[in-house]
């Protein structure tokens, strides 16, 4: 399939032999806008980390379309706020994909940084030290950095935490602009009303994918109930997951195929 920008094949991600995302199959279409929802511990953030490559898969693969770049806004940034940097220094990091280690920042680059700050409502904040920003302002500055990265695939992990209502509106508008520019956007989000109003597609996770497709279909009550019943805890005595199980055996015979749906009863990729 040519228009898949992200493809998951039997992707299992986790920590210490316990899966947090279990056997995910499917593809994310180029230019789609997907909300990723699910309870705490259902593997949403883990999936994001797996896509970026910060976390290596325990099994299976995740690959993105050739030449596509990923911009990632993590839920828990490892940002050191006491570092002596100004907003402009932080946001300029977003120029890395274009300028790399040694490329000079041009006047045009600087204009773009200013424009990105303007777009998130932080015009004139260039010279502010980052330790004087509020939580919401910092989040917007990080959004500006994502904007500057100009990536084909954009992953946002709970981007609206600690952000006021008006700013959420602004940021949603920004996300829709990306969507309009045919970028692939995935957003981890808890507010189902926002999802229903603004996101055409939804992936509902509960370690296993519960449903994946059009938002209205995915967020049907029975799916939400199934997602809610999922057991968050890890069990040390849980049996080992054997790849020889019947529905996965099927996967392996198709290792180089692309977008077949692997399970009759399982969720299908949108």
């Amino acid at each position, binding site marked *: 399939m040519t228009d898949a920008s992200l493809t998951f094949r039997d992707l299992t991600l986790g920590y210490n032999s316990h899966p947090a995302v279990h056997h995910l199959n499917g593809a994310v279409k180029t230019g789609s806008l997907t909300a990723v929802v699910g309870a705490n511990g259902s593997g949403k953030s883990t999936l994001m980390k797996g896509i*970026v490559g910060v976390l290596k898969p325990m099994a299976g693969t995740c690959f993105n379309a050739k030449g596509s770049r990923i911009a990632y806004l993590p839920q828990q940034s490892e940002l050191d706020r006491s570092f*002596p940097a100004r907003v402009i*220094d932080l946001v300029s990091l977003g120029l890395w994909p274009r300028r790399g280690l040694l490329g000079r920042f041009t006047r045009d680059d600087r204009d773009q940084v200013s424009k990105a700050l303007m777009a998130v409502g932080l015009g004139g904040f260039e010279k502010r030290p980052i330790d004087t920003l509020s939580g919401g302002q910092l989040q917007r500055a990080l959004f500006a950095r994502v904007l500057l990265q100009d990536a084909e695939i954009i992953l946002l992990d709970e981007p609206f935490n600690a952000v006021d209502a008006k700013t959420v509106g602004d940021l949603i508008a920004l996300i829709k602009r990306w969507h309009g520019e045919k970028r692939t956007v995935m957003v981890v989000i808890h507010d189902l009303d926002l999802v229903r109003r603004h996101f055409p597609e939804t992936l509902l996770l509960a370690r296993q994918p519960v449903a994946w497709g059009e938002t209205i279909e995915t967020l049907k009550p029975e799916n939400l109930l199934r997602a809610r019943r999922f057991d968050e805890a890890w069990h040390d005595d849980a049996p080992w997951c054997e790849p020889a199980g019947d529905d996965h055996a099927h996967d392996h015979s198709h290792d180089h195929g692309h977008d077949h749906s692997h399970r009759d009863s399982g969720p299908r990729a949108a």
Partner: protein
Amino acid sequence: MYDFLIAPFVEFGFMQRALMGSLMLSIGACPVGVFLMLRRMSLTGDAMAHAILPGAAAGFLLYGLQIVPMTIGGLIAGAIVALGAGAVSRFTVQKEDASMAAFYLISLAAGVLIVSLRGSSVDLMHVLFGTVLALNNDALTLIAMITGTTLLTLAIFWRALVAECLDPLFLRSVSRLGTPVHFIFLGLVVLNLVGGFQALGTLLSVGLMMLPAAAARFWTTRVEPMCALAILIGFASCVAGLLLSYHAALPSGPAIILSAGVIYICSIVFGTRGVFNTRTRHHRHRTA
């Protein structure tokens, strides 16, 4: 005035060498110190300073009190400890502070053992405290090379180093330089400590790295000026320390570090971000 400030450096060759050596050391070591401090690794420098001891001591045991073998030995020991501790922290659950402490303690014990195999306590004192007044041409060349390498490496990796300090997760998401940069930086720390140890001794060479950096933190909120200011503070400490040592017949290494210490304490009190300005002078504020 001339007699007091300038004459010692004009009249005595050993003072000139000491000045040149220590100024060059400041140029390389102070910016490295700034990054150590910003990465909250200030005590790592201290640990590394202890860690180079067995290498220097082994060189001393085999070749006597000679610069080159001791330096190479120190580099090797430092690299082993830095890589070992760095690797343990990057690839296991243990954090860098614990692994660094473990490695440097092992290294320090080995060092003391090696020194005691041959030398008297005078030798040990020499390795531990250095002699800036006895820098020969070999030593000066070595320091110049170390300073050059440090500046070049910092210039090349500056952006990655800043990104790795400011937002390591972001750097990992856009580039694979994160881990290499960390080790390159540890390499620079070792290099500058080794460069400093013949002048200031293994224990005090870290002083010229950390004190100016810690002092500069009280004056500015940006990295570039902070590095420049740290170098200037380093310069001032070297000149003041050497003069103090000359006029009062004090050991030069401690005199240099104590001068830096005085500047540090003054900075705490009077710096633009120091106690005086942030605690007492805040009576007025703007409306927005």
